[in-house]
């Protein structure tokens, strides 16, 4: 189910949060939970990186995860598409669900999971291939070879990533010739072409200049509703600008999670207040 981007912020399903104000028009039904963590623990060897995270992320929302370096933001993000599998010595405990399906189950098809939960990385990482082949990569890996169908999906992805007009005349040129901001939007287009339900973004603008950053933020706002987006950022202004909900992590623990405006204006936890007012971190 999708939520129109012009809708007011959907009511929260999260029991930790009480909405501060009633939405002007109450949605007919609360959006279903897309991502959920239940008492989720993660260890890198002996290091306890995530300590009993419990949160729910409603479908179609944008959630920002903030916190100081090393607090486990990226680790939590990368748990949702099992990217941490690549790191030897990782153990987990507790539950993690995408659309109600247990992500950590041994029977989980990780390839299928990653098609449904896309990811955008900190540094733009296009493949040294043409712009077209970058956008088509995920589809080709699914076995799609029909030139016509590929072209359609590639165009749709590039349009949604607000890159189409800039690259439509040079789809066969190397993606490495694009600027950093364009490369990052290409990485988003590449992810969108696969038509995921969820997009995980790991500090997607931290390697970009302010103009390119603003375009990425615009894009996140445009994609809101159609996709469930989780953005890790250490930039609190960015979190405030783009997200509906914010989760604050500190040393592997979820300190506070709630409506972004409420969390930034009247944090419930002293630690949150200290962090957002710049007293540490």
């Amino acid at each position, binding site marked *: 189910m999708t939520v129109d981007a012009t809708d007011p912020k959907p009511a929260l399903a999260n029991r930790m949060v009480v909405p501060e104000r009633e939405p002007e028009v109450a949605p007919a039904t609360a959006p279903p939970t897309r991502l959920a963590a239940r008492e989720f623990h993660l260890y890198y060897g002996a290091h306890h990186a995530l300590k009993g995270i419990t949160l729910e992320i409603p479908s179609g929302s944008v959630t920002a995860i903030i916190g100081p370096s090393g607090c486990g933001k990226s680790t939590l993000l990368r748990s949702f598409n099992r990217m941490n599998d690549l790191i030897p010595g990782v153990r987990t405990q507790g539950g993690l669900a995408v659309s109600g399906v247990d992500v950590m189950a041994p029977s989980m098809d990780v390839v299928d999971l*990653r*098609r449904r939960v896309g990811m955008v*990385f900190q540094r733009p990482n296009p*493949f040294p291939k043409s712009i077209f082949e970058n956008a088509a990569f995920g589809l080709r890996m699914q076995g799609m070879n029909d030139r016509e169908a590929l072209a359609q999906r590639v165009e749709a992805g590039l349009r949604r990533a607000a890159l189409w007009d800039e690259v439509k005349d040079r789809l066969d040129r190397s993606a490495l010739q694009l600027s950093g901001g364009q490369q990052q939007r290409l*990485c988003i287009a590449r992810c969108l072409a696969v038509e995921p339900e969820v997009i995980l973004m790991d500090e997607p603008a931290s390697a970009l200049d302010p103009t390119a950053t603003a375009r990425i933020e615009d894009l996140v706002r445009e994609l809101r509703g159609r996709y469930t987006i989780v953005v890790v950022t250490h930039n609190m202004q960015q979190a405030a600008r783009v997200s509906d909900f914010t989760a604050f992590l500190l040393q592997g623990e979820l300190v506070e999670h709630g409506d972004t405006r409420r969390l930034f204006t009247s944090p419930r936890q002293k630690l949150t207040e200290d962090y957002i007012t710049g007293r540490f971190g």
Partner: protein
Amino acid sequence: MSSAGLSLPGLPPLVRRRRTDFTGGAFTALSGLAALLIVAMVAVIVGEIAWNGAPTVTWEFLTAVPRHGMTQGGIFPAIYGTLLLVVLMVVALVPFGVGAAIWLHLYAAQDAWFTRAVRFAVHNLAGVPSIVFGLFGLGFFVQFVGRTIDRTLGLDVVWGQPALIWAALTLALLNLPVVIVTTEEALRTVGRDQREASLALGATRWQTVRHVLLPQALPGILTGAILAVARGAGEVAPILFTGAAYFLPFLPKAPTDQFMELGYHVFVLATQSPDVDATRPLLFGTVLVLLALTFLLNLTAILLRARLRARLLGRT
């Protein structure tokens, strides 16, 4: 200019103690001399060979067979044998070496005892003298594998004798560590972000290897192959017992045939000739051809690598 007068424009001259200056100056001179010596040695070797060999290298020399107890005629069988040997070696070596490197880099549990044993074996293999590879080739490929094939197929002696295929396999084994190490290094430089990008888009591990890692590692893999070819074309010891022939009146037609080879031919001309003076021009010519062939093989591979790199960087 004194040795202490070194200074950058706009900066005050560096004040140093004299002793350091002397040591530094002496070291600079010594290391410069060492570098010069290398250039000089190469110049002398190549110059000597080119000077003495060039008159011999005619079209006839390249296309004719040896005659009159190898005091006349050409070296075509040796050129042909060398090319065949190198091609066969690469065909056997590259898939095996690249496969092993992919396994080591991507699939192996890095701290498992088996992985460590494989790495240990690869590094030790690199230190084994080439003559030992030759003896191993004779014992393993010729006498064990070859004879087993003959016995199983009920043949007389067909596979169980020194042959082109066994020489190529022995050479491949000799060069295996080079290819494994360079390929693994090349895979490592592709970087985690490319691998993650591919996996995050729902590519399987094999698809990631096939469509992302290998294409980007190709220039590096090629470097390994270049080193192997350059070494393979010149190594005599590994093929001495496994397939190289002193003289053959015919060209090898099957992998079970013996063959003539340039490096071995040089050895034969230098040590086994009935008439040393008559052989000498041929010897220089053969060495020149061997050098030129190695150089050409290298050059081709280097150009190919440069083109691949340019394409990866989006410059074409």
